[in-house]
């Protein structure tokens, strides 16, 4: 870890001002906002992140969880994962988010990790996290050690010749299926970004992960009024707890009898970003609930999968994950 300046603004405006001095809001940022610190501090200890200045945003008024006039829910960026997961409205209307949050990390981490911070959770690729090895995400242009290396955990969808790092978040998979929007305040004012437009594919610039610019503060995440009455988050991994997903699936849907009227499908552990599958949704939309349809949806979702040397099994595992999540989601009351 390197020496850094530390400031604690009390207004969003102050935070924006401090953050705006950064050269970038992406990897190699010289100014970083810190909330729960569960990813950033780790990466600083590993010398993967070397900010010159840390801006502690924990004093900003962004921790509330409130219903909107339209029947949606606004989750403050500083709301802790543990609090969101146990919130009565989340449990009632957005159970998939609660399930996803509780399947991630450990109770201690969930007590610290925030909604906004989790949106920016970094990959667990071993090469990204060790400065000895080449990594285009950490050091643009240095190469990708994961391709041809230890890549069992890494992505099979959305990869490029420069990066195959997987997005590790559970929360963001559920938020994607819920079609959440992200409220950002920055030097040029306020804006709202649909979650599906928030993340970038790695392409030739894997160090750029989101559309955020210097000074942009995520202030909240808004969930639209609940559209599905059935939902489920299923996470598959080697052990039973405290591990990142090999494959996960978030399903939100509404049935009319046996007919699927509305469906949103997102996957985790397999994509370079939280992975919305329009292909699966297209197969499912308007069909009746049956195994054959689920299986076809899964095939469609993984059609473009490009596995690396060690993670070929994820293609089949992700399909089974999706099928089982659909079975469970359609079976729940």
């Amino acid at each position, binding site marked *: 870890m390197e020496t850094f300046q530390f400031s604690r603004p009390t207004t969003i405006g102050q935070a924006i001002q401090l953050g705006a001095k950064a050269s970038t809001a992406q990897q190699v940022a010289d100014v970083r906002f810190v909330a729960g610190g569960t990813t950033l501090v780790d990466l600083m200890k590993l010398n993967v992140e070397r900010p010159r200045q840390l801006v502690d945003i924990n004093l900003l008024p962004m921790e509330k969880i409130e219903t909107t006039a339209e029947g949606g829910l606004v989750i403050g960026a500083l709301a802790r994962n543990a609090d969101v997961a146990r919130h009565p409205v989340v449990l009632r209307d957005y159970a998939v988010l609660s399930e996803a949050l509780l399947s991630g990390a450990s109770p201690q981490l969930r007590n610290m990790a925030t909604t906004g911070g989790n949106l920016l959770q970094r990959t667990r690729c071993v090469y990204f996290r*060790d400065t000895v090895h080449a990594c285009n995400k950490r050091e643009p242009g240095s190469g990708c050690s994961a391709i041809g290396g230890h890549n069992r955990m890494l992505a099979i969808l959305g990869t490029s010749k420069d990066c195959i790092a997987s997005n590790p978040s559970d929360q963001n998979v559920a938020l994607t299926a819920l079609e959440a929007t992200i409220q950002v305040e920055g030097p040029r004012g306020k804006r709202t970004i649909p979650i599906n437009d928030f993340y970038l594919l790695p392409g030739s610039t894997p160090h750029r992960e989101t559309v955020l610019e210097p000074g942009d503060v995520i202030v909240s995440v808004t969930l639209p009024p609940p559209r599905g009455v059935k939902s489920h988050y299923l996470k598959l991994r080697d*052990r039973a707890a405290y591990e990142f997903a090999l494959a996960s699936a978030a399903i939100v849907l509404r049935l009319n009898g046996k007919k699927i009227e509305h469906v949103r499908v997102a996957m985790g552990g397999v994509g370079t970003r939280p992975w919305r599958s329009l292909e699966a949704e297209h197969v499912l939309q308007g069909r009746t609930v049956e195994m054959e349809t689920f299986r076809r949806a899964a095939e469609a979702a993984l059609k473009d999968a490009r596995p690396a040397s060690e993670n070929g099994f994820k293609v089949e595992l992700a399909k089974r994950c999706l099928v*089982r999540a659909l079975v469970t989601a359609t079976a729940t009351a």
Partner: protein
Amino acid sequence: MMFREFVEFIKSDEGPAPSAQQREAASPSKVIGAALPRIDGPLKTTGKALYASDYNFPNMTYCVPVRATIASGKILRIDSSAAAKMPGVLLVLHHGNIMPLYRNASGGRNSENRPPFEDDTIYYWGQYVAAVVAETFEQAQAAAAAVRVDYDSQRFNVSTVLEDSLPAEGQPGGPRLLSHRGDPDAAFAAAAVKVDETYTTPVETHNPMEMHATVAVWDGEKYTLYESSQGVMNHQTVMAQVLGEPKENVEVISRFIGSGFGGKLFPWTHSAIAAAAARKLNRPVKFTLNRKMMFANVGHRPRTQQRLRLGATAEGKLVALRHDYRNHTSLGDDIRENCGEATPFLYSTANLAVTSALVRRNVGTPTPMRGPGAVPGLFALESAMDELAIKLKKDPVALRLSLDTLEDEEKKKPFSSRHLKECLQVGAEKFGWSRRTPEVGSMRKGDVILGWGVACASWGASRGASEASVSLRSDGTVRVSSGTQDIGTGTYTVMAQVVSDKTGVPIDKIEVILGSSNLPPGPTSGGSTATATIMPSVVDAVNAATKILMTVATTTKGSPFNGKDASKLMLMDGCVCEKGASSPVPFQEILKAANVGSADGRGRSGGLGADPKARDYSTHSFGAQFVEIEWDPGIARVRVSRVVSVIDGGRILNKRTATNQIAGAVVMGIGMGLLEETIYDPRNGHPINDNYADYIVPTIADTPDIDVHFLDIPDPIMGEYGIRGIGEIGLAGIAPAITAAVYHATGIRVRDLPVRIEDLLAHTGPSTKRA
């Protein structure tokens, strides 16, 4: 190390036969076997127990190493000019400026024979090439990152395929014949039913919760080393030689250890680096390993590749058993993983051979890990037995029962106490084995398929020489001490129990002092031998102290026993009393009346080798492991749901700490069976998953219902109490019972640990085998 080697290691310090007369075993009091909580528990739960890195001294400095980023080659240049100018930096040590450090040749055992910074050669990724010492840990860490090292990188080998061509059996570097009887090859060729399979176990990293650390203090004449050590006496013996000092100038302190699993048996190179830095700076130095270093610098369970050949008659008589194995070792040290530990005697067979070979890899030196040899060896042997049972269409428990023997056919001696049969029978009963249907996938529970598997366990039993000291004190307390240590298993507690048993003084009046090389020489906590080794000395010390007490009682004016025959007096319930008479007197009253502070006794005991009776027997512990897994084929999920572990480990001193040991070992076995593998990147030799997120161990959520049962049968050869050891045997047999259960549920036989989702996906759909 091989258990056999471990026994030789502890025998090398073999003392004379016990000084006090061996007493005939009296029935122990209720304190023996009681489920007492750890006496050191409150210290640990309140944070008062000091572990190695908890020691802080004025003027402390902090040492952070620089590690090689190649797996083989030479250091061309170390540029520490930038680092040396950074804030707080005091010293940058490397092979160019380190004080002389020596190899040890005069007893004791080191881990890596090569002292740190001996020359400019790199043998494995992560090897220490320099060390920065600074005023703060952060300063040292930042400066270590600023040290530039140029290398001449050379060819290296970290391959997991151990098929290297080797000289012929018996030639230098070739396979060694470790056991042989009859004609196994001819018998195998002629056998009606055969199993011929190869099994592999991966590199496993010990990963105790507490990482290794040394706090080194140099006072101008002597070193004090605060360590996380499983053997303070050995650590002192070795470090005195490494540092070139007489033994009395090195004191090793290790009061509490956050477990070791074998990884802390022998000193590692950080200890010498910290000591050398402390001497150079004349200031205390703290060197704490981080989790990454735990994977490269302090040993591992080496990879094994084992070919098993079993030949049987159609009725199931075992006519041939051949176990040929290889394990990897480092370039500098020959570490033989004794996979054939249990093979020669576990089952009755007339024709048998065990061979062992080493292949070299650019990895750190392997070191014993819980049940070294036997645990990976039994994975192979017990897997092969399960495969044999299936070929014979016999129940795997019934097959093993039919092959049981009460004679060690290797040594041609009876076992001192072997109850493998009872382990299998009791386990089968508790597990409900009779309800098992043998067809693959035939048992269900709700939506999941159940798999049931069984395997036998074995681990050697021995004890070495030791000494202990006991003081009966005039404040009514008893102090017992020895230069052994408690690695978290309960040594403090069971020593207090034995003193309580012998004196009648309650546990809370007994003080146990361990973990210093200045104490009477005690055993290394390894090989499951510490408890059996130390207790005869504790008993001897109690007797010696009691003898002094009785002398005081019979020679002090005013003592009710003044002038009596000391041999007629006894210590009971903490009181001195005359045999056959009433009016007992608390022992402290006797001491107070005589103005004697304490009655002190020194106890000694020889090891098993000093006991002529022991030579006629083979001593081992046994066990049977029953495992249930739940298999959900739709999502290729396997979870262990139930384990019954029945252990024949001699007399159990403390049911609670013993159960904890076995249950903990079962959890570790789940890690071995399903999760753990240290992966070396073949492109650079880096153990690439060197952290707790990528090297996964079981969590509480992975911990099944575990039923631990002890037969609790004292071993007549293992001292007065009949104690064997239970530190390791709980892990033996778990992994093969898991893979047997996986087969029973899925029909997939996994011969390469760990069982992975990718192995099982083949069950109901297309799969891509991992690289």
